Structures are given as structure tokens and as C-alpha cells.
């Protein structure tokens, strides 16, 4: 017989197992990125102009690029475990750790705001459409959802920016800044736009999930108990309908954070995404590795958090 203590024990065990799996995943990401990167033609020194073979050799020796690949890999891994991602090849005197420390918080805030917006909006609109099935609100929202899913975020980013320009010009005051970063008002538009696609997707999911449990036996039980409709909706319907939404939140976080650099670019936000793209163009090995591994670890961690959250909402998952 299970009691609450063995429940808790099982939950902690589950959490530890998921964390170990996560660490292995991150190692695989690091390894795959490392070898893929070194197999791409060129190296970080290619961009240096008019380098004589001797200087090039010296530079390669300085950075350790002349050593066997496996040895480089070993050095890299041991540094990484100590939390040292090395120094950028392309940008003078900047360590990758510094770049991440400085720019990741910006991306993270943008990403988290987007996810919160997408999840709240998705659940709200999904529930709304399900309650008003085949009536006007449902039809309108579902049309917008199809747009939200099919139109890429850079289009919305440009449209959103243009709308802001026009509205600000029309009103004569700046209600929301058009670009840049710094205050809360800077964050609203970009995070809305970044979360839009995910929100559309979650709305659809929430709607179908609500409709699926619409005829559930336990809802009939709740009605037979004479409970008020709001209580039935919140306690019996919503909580059960939300389960599939939580399941896809993990992958959604992946989609949002990796998709973020486009929105960052359009709105001139100093996030990590820009450095990531730049580094790939410049074959800046350490920055590529650093940002990839960091992003990877972050996403794996978020997926684990979502899994654990799922266990809190759905008691049946805890004992697995």
C-alpha cells in the first residue's frame, strides 16, 4: 500500500534519475557539436588577413589546434566540467563565460516571458473556444490560431514593430518602445511576438483536450454532486485538461529559446542568440561550443522541470 512517504521517496528517486539522464544528454550534445564543428571546412584563424604560414602555425600551436582531435576533445571536456568554456577566437579578450553571463539573462527573460504568455494565453483561449464551441468566439479564435501557427515569427516581428511605429506616431507619444532593451516596456512586444506561435499551438491543444474530457464520467459525477459550474470548471475540468498542455511545454520552451534570435535581431535585443549565429559564421569554436552546450543544458533542464511539474499535477506519474 502506498502512503505519502513512499510517494515522496519515489518522487525524489524519479527526479534524480531524470537529472542523470539529463547530464548524459548534455554530454552527447557536447560531443556531437565538437566533432561536427571540427569537420566543417575552415577554422577560426581563416578570417585573419594575410597570415603567413609561420604565424599561422604559431597561432595554431598557441590555441592548441595542432594537437590530435581526440586530445583537443579531452581538454575541452575537462575544462567544460570545471565550468570553463574558454576564450573567444574572434572577439579579443572575451571569455565565453563572460558572453553567456552578460547576454543569456536577456534571452532568458525574453524566453520565460514568452512561455508564460504562451501558456496563459493558450490555456485561456483554449478553454474559451471549448466552452463556446462552434459559436463566434470559437470561430474567430480558431482562425487566428491557424494564422499564428502558419505565419513565421519574423513576419509577426516586423508587423508588430511597424504597428508600434504607426501607433506611436498617431498618438504622438511612445506607448511602447519600437526596439531596444532595458525596461519592462521594452520586453512586452518582443515576448508577445516570440510566444505567439506557441500560444496558437497550445490553444489548439487545450481546446481539443477540453472537448475530449467534456463527456468524462467524473464531470457527470461533479454535476450530480450539485457543485457550482465555476468549481466544476476549475477543479474538475481545467486541471485534467491542462495535462497534455504541460507535456508539450518542454518542447515548446526549446522552440521558443532557439527561435528567439530572429526576434532578438529584429528588435535589437542584446541576447545570446545573436552571438550564437555570429559564432557559427566565424567558426569561433569556443563560442559555438559554449553557447550550444549551454543552450542544450538549459533546454534539458527545462524539460526535466516540466516533467517534475507534471508529476505534481498528475498523481499517476509520480510512482512510475
Amino acid at each position: 500500500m502506498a502512503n505519502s512517504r513512499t510517494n515522496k521517496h519515489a518522487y525524489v528517486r524519479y527526479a534524480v534519475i531524470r537529472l542523470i539522464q539529463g547530464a548524459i544528454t548534455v554530454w552527447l550534445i557536447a560531443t556531437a557539436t565538437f566533432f561536427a564543428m571540427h569537420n566543417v571546412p575552415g577554422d577560426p584563424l581563416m578570417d585573419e588577413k594575410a597570415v603567413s604560414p609561420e604565424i599561422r602555425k604559431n597561432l595554431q600551436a598557441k590555441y592548441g589546434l595542432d594537437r590530435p582531435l581526440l586530445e583537443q576533445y579531452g581538454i575541452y571536456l575537462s575544462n567544460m566540467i570545471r565550468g570553463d568554456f574558454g576564450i573567444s577566437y574572434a572577439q579579443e579578450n572575451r571569455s565565453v563565460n563572460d558572453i553567456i553571463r552578460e547576454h543569456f539573462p536577456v534571452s532568458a527573460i525574453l524566453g520565460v516571458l514568452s512561455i508564460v504568455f504562451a501558456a496563459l494565453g493558450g490555456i485561456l483561449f483554449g478553454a474559451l473556444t471549448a466552452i463556446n464551441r462552434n459559436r463566434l468566439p470559437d470561430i474567430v479564435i480558431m482562425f487566428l490560431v491557424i494564422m499564428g501557427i502558419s505565419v513565421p515569427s519574423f513576419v509577426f516581428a516586423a508587423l508588430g514593430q511597424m504597428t508600434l511605429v504607426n501607433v506611436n506616431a498617431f498618438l504622438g507619444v511612445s506607448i511602447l518602445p519600437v526596439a531596444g532593451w532595458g525596461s519592462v516596456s521594452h520586453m512586452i512586444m518582443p515576448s508577445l511576438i516570440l510566444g505567439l506561435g506557441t500560444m496558437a499551438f497550445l490553444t489548439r491543444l487545450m481546446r481539443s483536450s477540453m472537448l475530449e474530457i467534456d463527456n468524462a464520467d467524473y464531470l457527470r459525477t461533479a454535476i450530480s454532486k450539485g457543485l457550482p459550474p465555476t468549481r466544476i470548471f476549475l477543479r474538475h475540468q481545467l486541471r485534467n485538461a491542462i495535462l497534455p498542455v504541460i507535456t508539450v511545454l518542454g518542447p515548446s520552451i526549446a522552440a521558443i529559446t532557439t527561435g528567439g534570435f530572429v526576434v532578438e535581431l529584429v528588435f535589437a535585443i542584446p541576447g545570446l542568440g545573436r552571438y550564437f549565429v555570429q559564432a557559427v559564421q566565424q567558426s569561433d569554436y569556443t563560442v559555438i561550443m559554449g553557447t550550444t552546450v549551454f543552450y542544450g543544458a538549459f533546454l534539458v533542464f527545462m524539460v526535466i522541470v516540466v516533467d517534475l511539474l507534471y508529476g505534481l499535477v498528475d498523481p499517476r506519474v509520480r510512482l512510475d
Partner: protein
Amino acid sequence: MALLEVSDLHVEFAVQGGSVQAVRGASFSVNEGETLAIVGESGCGKTVSVQSVMGLIQTPPGRITRGTAKLRGQDILGGVAAGGREIRGTDIAMIFQDPMSSLNPTMTVGAQIAEPLIVHRGYSHRQAMRRAQELLEMTLIPDAASRINEYPFEFSGGMLQRSMIAMAIACEPSVLIADEPTTALDVTIQSQILDLMVDLQRTNNMAIVLITHDLGVVARMANDVAVMYAGEVVERGTVDDIFYRSAHPYTLGLKSAMPTNRQGAVQKLTPIEGAPPDLFDPPPGCGYYTRCPYAMEVCEATPPIVFDVDRAHQSRCWLHHKDCLQQVTQIYRP
């Protein structure tokens, strides 16, 4: 006057190109502290009838076109009394066929039992949970103190049905509607659940409306029986009336299709031939006409009216008309 009285209930469901007349005249009643069994084959309208009374059918597509349901003389059709007072969970409670899916999987069993107390009686969460534990103890669930904090997936089917009963009787309702409460359970558990219901009925003086198609359960539990066929109550009476003084050919058919445990019994079971009528397009006359061995000319086009066979014993069959010449020995006529 009966405690709960349902008369002439008609319910239909809108479907593509028309409507299905699921209930076409159901009348039944139950007295305080007694048990009414509603029997009949699948699709005859048993469940729809009681769910309409409780306001559990979805409207649309469902629609109650005629009839009344009165609790102590007060109209309660649809689960709400005059003035909007909620009678579900307080005066009438219901348990269902499949306990596995009838409880909310993401709420503890205790919280679900406590819910009606919090909503209808204004209990605090703590009081309600304490009472939930007592209720689980009353329904003979071992370790109730720890069980109230568990989730439905941690319970067996029998325990879930006990929990459903605990939840239903939380506010001491005067009527408990049990819609095939033991169909999904194995035989030994069935018996325990029925015993439990009888015990609780005695202590709370509660009326039970029991829907079943198990005539054995009827014989054991019921004071009165209503036999339903094709959306109509075709025969009503005491349990002895129905079993020993059957007054409708369909009741006779059901009885001869029932296996016995008499020693040395060798005769085969006699099924009722044919199938019940399509309620999308119900026949003009008696719904049992095509299957009835005693069918007469009048039955084809003229729906039979309800005849009083005896005191509190009624049959919806033309055989009871005073001008009927056909004598059927198996059909009881006083």
C-alpha cells in the same frame, strides 16, 4: 404520497435528420426508506430517465419534452428546485456504473468526498476532511485515515464504488439513485456493495432508485419494480407483483430468459426473439408488438394505455382491457 414521483417523462435527443425518442412515457415513484428497481434491457431509457431527473443529460442535444419529477410534492425536474435551490448532492445523490472513471483522477478521494459538504453545508476544509474519513469508515474502507489522501488510481474498483457511495451520502440525501452500481464489479464485491447500500438505507431511512438488468439483484433489493421497454414503463408493481403476478408479456419474457439455480433444471433459457424498435422512428402501436407472442390486431397501430391490474400494480398492455377476449394464463388478471 411518494417521496419521489416521476410522471409521464418524455425525453428526446436531436440527431442528424430528426430525433431519437429515448424516453416516451416513464412514470415511477419511490417511498421513503424503500427501494425501487428500474429494469429493462440496454437502451430502453432507464439511465436517460434518471439522468433527466438529475439534469445530467446534455441539452442540446437532449430535451425533456414532457413530464414532471416531484420530490415531496415539489417540482425538481432537472436537478433544481423552485427558487434555484440545488437538490443534487443534498436531497438526491447518484452513483454510477463505472467507478473507475467516475472519480476525478487528479483529486484525492478525500477531497472529492469532502466537496459536497464544503459546497452545500458550509464545512471548512478541515471539518469536511474529518467527515470524509468518517464516511469512508462507514463504507468499510480500511485505513480510512490514510486513504483519504490517496488518489483514485490507488484504489480498487470495489473501494472506488464504496468511495462513490461515501460521497453520495455525505449530505444525507433522502434519495440515492444507483445506476447499475455493480455491473462493473466482480460478483463477491457486488454482493458487498449491495449489502452496504441496504445498511446505509436502514440507518439513514434513505430511498434508493436502483437501475439494473440483473433480476437477481432486483429480487434481493427492491420493494417496488418498474419494468421499462422501448422508452416506456410497461409494468409497475411490488416486487412480488412483478415476479409472481406478472401482468405484461415483456415481463414474462424477461423471466423466462432468466437462468435458475434450481437443481435438476434441464430446460433451455428462452430468449425474447427479435430486437427492440428503433426509437428514431418508433412504431405507431405497442413497442413490443413485433416480439410479443400474444400480440393482437389492436396492438399494431394503437399504443396501449396503462391499466390498473391491482392496487399499485399497473400494466401497459391491451390484454387488460375489459373487452379483451384473449385469455393468456401466464398473464396475471385478478
